[in-house]
């Protein structure tokens, strides 16, 4: 009698045609995006120098501003750290979206993206994959900042749940804004152009806020800009949730802006990518 250990011979693996009929399109789409996110993540982890902008850069910014301006703006560095750190968190996560567009621009020109185009997957999957894979950079960025801030004496003034909400909110805003970077990454002819244009927009968006100094100390025309700039609201929401203060207004504005940015840039990016094919 046949031994119980022998297994029946496995048949051939299914063809793409057979495999596609087993699960609904939406479930397959999620798997495709997660598969490509994993690819992007593996690539980042194999070239750790790509994480400099979310590790060393925020640390240098904190040290620079706290010790250069702390005494002048707040009278003490520890008081200034409380004011600055939540805002720096917003700024560095926004800066981190630039790398996504730059990397995508380089990546798209390589052969593997043409293979993705020849596969029966949604046109948005390779873009979503890149973005989801890069979200881990935001997590690293936030963890580094909170850890370094803690070492310098920063303490969460609210409760852990609010602090977590602050982190999620900042990441949500970045996830929406990142599609502008993706759009540029798809349409720009070279990676340098993506970086140049993105930073041109990033500087007024992040420094044109009350990140470094309170709005009242600014000239009138700049106060106007700071007040209409959505990044100010994101920074205020992060401050409120991390150190205490008004929360409802800035959080609502942040959520609305996030939804708006996503609604505009996501379809534009996917359309641009589809056209390129």
């Amino acid at each position, binding site marked *: 009698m046949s031994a119980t250990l022998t297994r029946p011979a496995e048949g051939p693996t*299914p063809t*793409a045609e057979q495999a596609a009929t087993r699960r609904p399109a939406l479930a397959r789409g999620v798997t495709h995006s997660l598969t*490509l996110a994993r690819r992007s993540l*593996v*690539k980042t982890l194999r070239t750790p120098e790509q994480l400099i902008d979310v590790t060393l850069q925020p640390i240098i910014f904190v040290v620079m501003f706290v010790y250069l301006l702390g005494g002048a703006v707040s009278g003490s560095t520890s008081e200034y750290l409380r004011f600055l750190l939540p805002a720096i968190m917003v700024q560095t996560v926004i800066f981190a979206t630039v790398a996504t567009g730059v990397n995508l621009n380089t990546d798209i020109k390589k052969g593997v993206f043409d*293979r993705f185009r020849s596969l029966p997957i949604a046109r948005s999957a390779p873009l979503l994959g890149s973005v989801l894979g890069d979200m881990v950079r935001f997590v690293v960025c936030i963890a580094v900042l909170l850890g370094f801030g803690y070492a310098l004496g920063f303490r969460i003034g609210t409760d852990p749940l609010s602090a977590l909400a602050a982190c999620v909110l900042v990441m949500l805003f970045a996830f929406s804004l990142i599609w502008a970077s993706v759009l540029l990454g798809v349409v720009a002819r070279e990676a340098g152009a993506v970086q140049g244009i993105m930073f041109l927009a990033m500087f007024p968006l992040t420094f044109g806020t009350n990140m470094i100094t309170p709005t009242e100390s600014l000239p009138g025309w700049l106060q106007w800009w700071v007040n209409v700039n959505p990044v100010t609201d994101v920074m205020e929401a992060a401050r409120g949730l991390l150190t205490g203060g008004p929360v409802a207004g800035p959080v609502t504005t942040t959520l609305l802006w996030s939804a708006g940015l996503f609604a505009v840039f996501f379809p534009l990016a996917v359309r641009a990518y589809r056209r390129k094919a």
Partner: protein
Amino acid sequence: MSYAFRTTGLVKRFGDTTALAGVDLAARPGTVLGVLGPNGAGKTTAVRILATLTRPDGGTAEVAGHDVVREAEEVRRRVGLTGQYASVDEDLTGVENLVMIGRLLDLTRQEAKRRAGELLEQFDLTAAGGRRAGTYSGGMRRRLDLAASLVARPEVVFLDEPTTGLDPAKRDDVWALVREQVASGVTVLLTTQYLEEADALADEIAVIDQGSVIAQGTPHELKSVVGGQTLQVRPLDPARLGEVGDILERVTGGRPDSPARDVLSVPVTGDAALPPVVARLAEQGIEVMELSLRLPSLDEVFHTLTRRDTPAATGPATAAPDRTAHETKGAAVA
């Protein structure tokens, strides 16, 4: 007749350049169509359209009965693509690349891993499977590219210049792998600049030049385009070359030529000259190392077909849209 893929009057323009000026290509299931042409002839553009990467400006293209524009997704499920462009991710290992493609083709994680293992073994890459593809040699890289196009058992495989840049031994490896796929029922469209490659693999060959098919047929038919055969003799003793030359000239009436050292060849029509030549060589006791009657090489065919009477600057407008091998034969002989 059913076709694995077929294009009709395919047109593609890039700005002022006409890459394809009405191209008809077709292959029956389980055969190899070789698309032959110089750089810039339009080979890659034709493949990109069939693989749904580029939209045609005119004409139609079907793969496995599905239109490449209207039913792109159906086409993508049934084709595999390997080429200068569609390649693997150099930062991922061989296994990671194949598993990723399997997952994107809706295999379960287990199926994707099993298939990756099978393919790596079949392509002699098992030992290198855990290394980043960026560290692979040229030959290994091509084998991985080819494996990547076969993950979901496609009906049609497009191979765009699969051996360009490989040394002859590595090239033979790739050819053997392509033959295995064809033997298992896959239809292959192979583009190449090498006539030898088309001759070795293709059932039918389409010669493309300046965006148009200038000849189409079996390798045999294309060789007959330049007409006639060559009778070639290499005596064992080079000192007797003179006597061999006399025999060839007396039997065929043609003046023998020396294509290589110690070899004489003479153009003939049919095989009538063979028996008398053999008989006289035996009479005079001349031992031969080599004696052959062969068709012209595809290189000779290619040069005959692409010989241009007009300057290239007049462009594709002057190229005949789609002549068959027989019509071309008439033109070439005349």
